[in-house]
């Protein structure tokens, strides 16, 4: 029911998945012998989904995101992004990536930082300026374009880095613990803004987090993972409405989903050792 309603709301029919992983394996060869970072990971992500990956350190959530972004090569299984290999998808500018640290280049102003991917991808000057202006407005950073990164707070820097990932208008936004280093209050604020941005842009978002409330608050789909070897233990489809005020976190529906996530983490023996 909810699925169909959402499809109508978004004015798009359900279609082939944006990301499809099947039996994905990834083994890192380290000095201490092989480490199984991902084992038998299968997952599909549909267009417009907001998917959170949650689990303790070493569960492979970041690794999985990096595989989608073609920053790591899987050692087994298949994965497609927009029906292509991750490399092809990257060359087609399928995704923007937001790292845990804002990673703005300190010698560039905010607008120059946001323009960086545009310069590399060869957009002309006028188009660059237009897009920079648009995405800075989108993340509420109008008027800060001429500032250097150090002149902005941590939360503002992270918003600038989101703007940078949005600048070339990729369909997919991959975010690796983007708010992990920020305090609770700033984090709440940015979560709210991120949901608004998602509603406005209709992007597909992959979001890695450590925080159960953050995952439940943001996601349409929560992927619970556990370590050694990194694997998926539960996939939870959230039935919370798309419109989510912050106080939705006190509703029984919200708490029920949070409970199931916690159960999933426990079932993975995540905190046993």
């Amino acid at each position, binding site marked *: 029911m909810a699925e169909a309603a959402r499809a109508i709301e978004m004015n798009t029919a359900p279609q082939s998945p944006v990301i499809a992983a099947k039996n994905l394996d990834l083994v890192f060869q380290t000095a201490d012998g092989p480490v199984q970072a991902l084992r038998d990971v299968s997952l599909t992500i549909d267009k417009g989904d907001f998917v959170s990956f949650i689990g303790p350190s070493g569960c492979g959530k970041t690794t999985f995101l990096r595989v989608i*972004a*073609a*920053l790591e090569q899987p050692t087994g299984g298949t994965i497609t992004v927009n029906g292509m290999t991750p490399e092809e998808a*990257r*060359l087609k500018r399928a*995704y*923007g*990536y937001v*790292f*845990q*640290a804002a*990673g703005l*280049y*300190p*010698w*560039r*102003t905010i607008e120059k930082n946001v323009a*960086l*991917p545009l*310069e*590399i*991808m060869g957009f002309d000057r006028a188009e660059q300026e237009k897009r920079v202006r648009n995405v800075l407005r989108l993340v*509420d950073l109008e*008027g*800060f374009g001429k*500032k*250097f*990164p*150090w*002149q*902005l*707070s941590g939360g*503002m820097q992270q918003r600038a880095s989101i703007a940078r990932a949005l600048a070339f208008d990729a369909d997919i936004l991959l975010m690796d613990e983007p708010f992990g280093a920020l305090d609770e209050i700033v984090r709440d604020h940015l979560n709210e803004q991120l949901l608004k941005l998602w509603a406005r842009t209709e992007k597909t978002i992959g979001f890695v987090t450590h925080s159960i409330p953050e995952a439940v608050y943001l996601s349409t789909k929560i992927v619970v993972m556990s370590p050694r070897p990194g694997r998926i233990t539960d996939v939870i489809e959230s039935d919370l409405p798309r419109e989510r005020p912050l106080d939705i976190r006190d509703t029984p529906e919200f708490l029920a989903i949070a409970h199931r996530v916690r159960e999933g983490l426990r079932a993975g023996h995540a905190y046993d050792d």
Partner: protein
Amino acid sequence: MSAATAYGANDRSGAAGWIAALSSTVLPVLTIVLAIVAIWYAASVMMNRAWTLDEAERRGVQLTVMEIVSDAMNQERPVLPTPHQVFDELWSTTVGEPVMRERRGEMQGNPRNLVFHAYHTLWPTILGFGIGSFLGILLAIGITHSRAMDMSVMPWAIASQTIPILAIAPIIVVVVSNLPALNNAVSQGWISEDTKLLVPKALISAYLSFFPVVVGMVAGLRSPQATDLDLMRTYSASRGQTFWKLRLPASVPFLFTSLKVSIAAALVGTIVAELPTGARFGLGARLLTGSYYGQTIQIWSALFMAAICAAALVILLGALEKIVLKRMGARS
């Protein structure tokens, strides 16, 4: 979101601030300078005293303590010249006398003029510094982009710096001054004999100055973090784009630090190069003639001139660094 206004300058104006600045920086600096001068005078008296006493004994006169001190501070060829002697010499050989220059085919002015000699040392220094740092940057780019170069060039660069420059300078001088192309240029009248002497000086100076730049630039070009590089990969950026937009700008602070070391090394290189070339001009030549004739005051004033030149060059680079880094968003 009014953070834009929150970054005002820290204004510490007014007389109170001025006095605070005076007592916190000027006074300590002055104290140290005075201490150095005092120690210097004391050392001069201690070291020059023996000659004064010998001389007095030979003449059979008895000297008071004040007379000994006064004589030890004003000898013509002291073991250690006093500050005022060095300063007098510096003054009279720079401002006090006309600069030597060529006029209608004749050298005019005073051959002792240190401005003239400093000029002859500074040009090869700047030329050698230019060649050396350019080469150093090129090598560093090669080393960071090619594993083969990393493994083959770096050991040679390090080895080159373990050879004493005094040993290799004469070899470079002999080889370069016998280059047919160079001799041809002189005989054709394209360059003068003096300009020809400038070439080996600049090369030796470059030999000393390229190394700090290589080391600093390699560190600088490798300074971007893994996520900075990952970001470039997510844009499918080419190696060239990663170089121009990430590695090169990230290396600029490292570059300036090594350039300052490098320009001081370049000056040393030029002075050393002047010693075995039998150069008539240059601070090295002044040092050499000074030591031939036991003119310690001349040696010391040439040394001070070299130090002043080095300081001026480093300060110049420092100013350039400030301007460049400020434009690159560094906090002031």
